[in-house]
């Protein structure tokens, strides 16, 4: 048997009427390019995956539960039994971190995703349609932005009551307006370009112009906003919990742990520092991954 050539056959020139047509880059090629170009993004993806796995496998990874109190061992420093120490109720911090990550990861990602999609959709429609549609959507956004976001979140949470779903809803409602504004201004820039004029002259339908021309050119902006909204959401949730409107002890969330640990900052710093470090790690990971994705999706930087 003839051995396969080691290098890829790239020299083939395609002509109309050929049996075999050129193939587009598949998902794998894009992933491989991401891996090859941006080590930081790969490490970040691994970190995120690790956090997600830890959250899913929490009950298997620890002998304690997040609610077990042990008042004899309050505020004990890190030790072989309690790797990250215990809190003011003698609860194992590692266990609370693992269970808390379930809440915090969801709170970071879900509302950011929802507000990004909602904001982008409204922003693009607003910028593309103009006129009354634009005025209505933007005044609505102004209304949302006019209130301090914390106050708005408190009012919504107070009205709706606690619970994870309500936190999602609240954080999404608070964040969409900022996204919509930025995406709208991007849209206004894009619809003045010649390639959109060319599409209009060709007779391409409005919805297709929005999806094929405006949206892909907004994605880098959307990714940046998405990664910025993740830490903001985690922290807003912690403030809400602190005020008694979010997650309530003995349930755990990272934000809540940072906040309750503050009063012991001098006597037992690990209470706050460990969840803070986790928030920082996850935020950085999402930022780097977002950067890497924006790079790979940006045709200007591809194949150069």
């Amino acid at each position: 048997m003839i051995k396969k050539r080691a290098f890829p056959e790239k020299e083939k020139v395609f002509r109309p009427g050929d049996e075999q047509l050129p193939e587009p880059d598949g998902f794998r090629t894009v992933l491989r390019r991401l891996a090859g170009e941006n080590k930081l993004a790969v490490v970040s993806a691994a970190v995120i995956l690790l956090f997600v796995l830890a959250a899913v496998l929490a009950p298997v990874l620890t002998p304690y539960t997040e609610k077990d109190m042990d008042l004899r061992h309050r505020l004990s420093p890190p030790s072989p039994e309690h790797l990250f120490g215990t809190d003011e109720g003698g609860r194992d911090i590692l266990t609370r971190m693992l269970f808390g990550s379930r809440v915090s990861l969801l709170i970071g990602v879900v509302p950011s995703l929802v507000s990004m999609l909602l904001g982008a959709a409204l922003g693009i429609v607003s910028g593309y349609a103009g006129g009354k549609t634009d005025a209505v959507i933007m005044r609505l956004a102004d209304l949302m932005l006019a209130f301090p976001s914390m106050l708005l979140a408190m009012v919504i949470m107070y009205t709706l009551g606690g619970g994870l779903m309500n936190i999602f809803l609240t954080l999404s409602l608070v964040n969409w307006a900022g996204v919509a504004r930025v995406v709208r201004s991007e849209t206004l820039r894009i619809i003045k370009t010649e390639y959109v004029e060319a599409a209009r002259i060709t007779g391409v339908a409005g919805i297709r112009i929005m999806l094929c021309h405006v949206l892909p050119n907004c994605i880098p902006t959307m990714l940046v906003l998405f990664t910025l909204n993740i830490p903001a959401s985690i922290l807003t949730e912690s403030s809400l919990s602190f005020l008694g409107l979010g997650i309530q002890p003995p349930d755990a969330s990272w934000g809540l742990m940072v906040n309750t640990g503050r009063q012991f900052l001098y006597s037992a710093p690990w209470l706050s520092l460990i969840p803070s470090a986790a928030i920082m790690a996850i935020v950085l990971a999402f930022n780097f991954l977002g950067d890497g994705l924006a790079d790979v999706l940006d045709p200007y930087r591809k194949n150069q």
Partner: protein
Amino acid sequence: MSGFLLEGKDLTKEFPAGGNKTVHAVSNVSLGLNEGETLGLVGESGCGKSTLGRMMIRALKPTSGEVFFRGRSLTAMSDREFAAVRRRFQMIFQDPYASLNPRMTVRSLIAEPLETHRICSGKKETTEKVLELMDAVGVPGDFLYRYPHQFSGGQRQRIGIARAIAQSPEVIVCDEPVSALDVSVRNQILNLLSDLRKTRGLTYLFISHDLSVVRHISDRVCVMFLGKICESGPTEEIWSSPAHPYTSFLLRAVPKADPKRRTDASALLTGEIPSPIDPPAGCRFHTRCPYAGKICAQEEPPLRTWGERTVACHFPLNR
């Protein structure tokens, strides 16, 4: 009934310019394209060439006036009626960097008109048609899934041309298609355009400020000044005996390689174009015209026609 394929009658376009002011971009211009010809539209920047070109294919609504395609009024059509004839018109843009979406592959760029007008059935057929078009404009087929930034300016313009001819249009408005290109590529693109016109029976409205380019490609020429057409006629006749003073100055201003044949600086036009916000009364050229008489500042010159030529001047030259 006129024999024109596409005809604009008394087209006027005014843009609001803040306050109570309006920009008179195009004023009462009539223009006709014969089937299969290339009509050159020349003029300084800002004289309304592109505005006129866009109005001719209903990419821009005229303030007043009408456009007829095969005797049917495009301007009177509803959007739905126009959708049925939209396929007949296309446009090629000046800037091959701005006119191609940077996030679309060559395939999706060229396939867009095919998909919009449902010309091919199925993905495979579309891809084959795209390859055929790429072959016709001289872009190798293995670049099918490349992005615009991976091409040179000339190659991109070829992609823009492939997109324009994909839906088999009858009229293409070429808005300065070669002015952003290197001189070395310019001729290739011009020749490509000429070839495509012959093989595909296209009609061009060729907008340019570059006289040598227009002379090279056009059968007839219209010269515009400040929103008005001052002269039109067969290319060679206009070059050999310009009738409007503006045309003659324009032709004299072309740089010449031979120093002995260079135009005396005193024979060149001085001054700026008057503002289109407040165009001069009478003939719009009279403020800069050395031949202008009293009447030029008062009365707008009527269109005089002889043979195939038309001129809007009280005192035409070479007659």
